[in-house]
């Protein structure tokens, strides 16, 4: 952890071998920090983090049985909108990707594309034991087992399946982490893209994704 760049103190270095973008924009574009001269100041960073934590936009995408538990969050009983959490239907406008349960290898491809298209800073929430260790699909040929190997997960919510209260608890934890500047998964993904790619390619046999889905 120690050699990871510190978000509180400026823009991290761009790792060697970054994928250049057609517009002359490399991976640093996704590191999330607008290069403004004030960004070294912790105060500004704190304000930014406060805004980010209080306006979490979740991409409406469900992978496993856990996505059933996402729906009640919008209803009167649980009402996630009171925390500023809203569902967005497009990855371009979302900050949080919830992997809601088992993730089939087919979906993993789509999830990778969606994750890479989201603007930084972005966070991944693993919902249910299936994302932690495979859960009751631990010996399935069709699902991935440990989500951490393929995407940088910030918060895990254990259970099979976790109740909506647990999900709200997970969101609260994520908000706390964002406010404290503890979430660096999206930086890790850029820094160790090769490692993630290797793992992804190991289980996606018919790999046909671009170098990076801009």
């Amino acid at each position: 952890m120690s050699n990871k760049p510190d978000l509180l103190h400026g823009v991290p270095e761009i790792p060697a071998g970054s994928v250049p973008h057609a517009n002359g924009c490399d991976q640093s574009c996704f590191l999330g920090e607008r290069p403004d001269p004030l960004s070294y100041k912790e105060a500004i960073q704190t304000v930014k983090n406060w805004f980010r934590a209080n306006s979490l936009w979740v991409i409406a995408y469900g992978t496993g049985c856990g996505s059933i538990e996402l729906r009640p969050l919008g209803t009167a009983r649980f009402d996630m909108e009171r925390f500023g959490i809203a569902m967005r239907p497009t990855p371009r406008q979302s900050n949080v990707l919830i992997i809601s349960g088992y993730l089939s290898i087919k979906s993993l491809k789509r999830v990778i594309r969606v994750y890479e298209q989201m603007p930084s800073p972005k966070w991944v929430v693993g919902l249910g034991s299936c994302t932690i260790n495979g859960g009751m699909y631990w010996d399935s040929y069709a699902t991935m087992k440990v989500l951490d190997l393929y995407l940088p997960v910030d918060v895990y919510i254990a259970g099979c399946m976790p109740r909506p209260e647990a999900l709200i608890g997970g969101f609260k934890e994520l908000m706390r982490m964002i406010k404290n500047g503890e979430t660096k998964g999206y930086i890790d993904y850029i820094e160790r893209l090769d490692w993630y790619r290797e793992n992804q390619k190991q289980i996606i046999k018919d790999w046909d994704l671009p170098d990076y889905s801009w």
Partner: protein
Amino acid sequence: MSLAIKIAWSLLNVLVAIAYGLVTYGVVRKTMARIQGRIGPPIYQPFIDLGKVIFLRTATSHGVMFFLGPIFRFVGGVGLFLVLPVIVGVPALENFSFNGDLLLAMYFMFFGSLGMALGAAEGGHPHSPIGIGRGLSQMTSFELPFGLAVVALISVGGSFSVTEIVQRQQELGGVLGWNLFQQPFAAAAAFLALLGMNMYPPFNIVGAPQEIPVGPPTEYNAVFQSLMMSGRSIFAIAKTVMFMDLFLGGATSIPEAFLKTFCIYMWTVFVGAVFPRFRTEQSIRFFLGWPTLAGVVAVLLPLF
């Protein structure tokens, strides 16, 4: 009043209108939540959302027109607001209204959406053109009753100037002097068209989140989105100011202006809270039906 001071006042008006639009949107979200039995987000939630998207960094680019789309939309909203007098008789709040501003206002109402259509289409996302197609066809159909209502107002009032239309209503005096009661058919056509303009249900097919993820803005994020959010709020306020001037006799004081615009805006929200969504052809049929008929009656009635 010198031009420099006038520009400064207008800038201030625009900023206030944006903030007011955002607060209104917060109130709308809260209202919808309460109607659905939820607690709902705080009223200042749109400000948090706006702040967040401004701090985001985008790496998507699809060409020049893609950048210009949200700017056109924003300019359309600001332009519409700037040609309308908020309070007639108070120079600081009259913005840049002039003779014939009603024509320019009608033009600005289309301008933003057209720019947005060009920009979003360049995004190349298949859902954007679908949203645009739906949006423009719906817009064309509600422009008809609204246009007829405006023609009726112009022919009765004999003026293209919003200021003169407001003065005429205020000279007639009292609530009954408003065009809402003087020309009920024109008012009916226009207020039904407003339902389509504000794009709350049943006319929110344009940005249907389920089948065509938010429609035209699908590809926009970060600064683009912040421009669109502020553009939408000022556009909403400009439209309500226009309706206040045309039908509710304008305003004589600032609290009155706030109250009237808020009531006009909430009319569409309350209708939206209880209706499901129309399909595109259903909404077109709706606008070409009773609202257009009311508009035709409003235009023909003074002839007899």
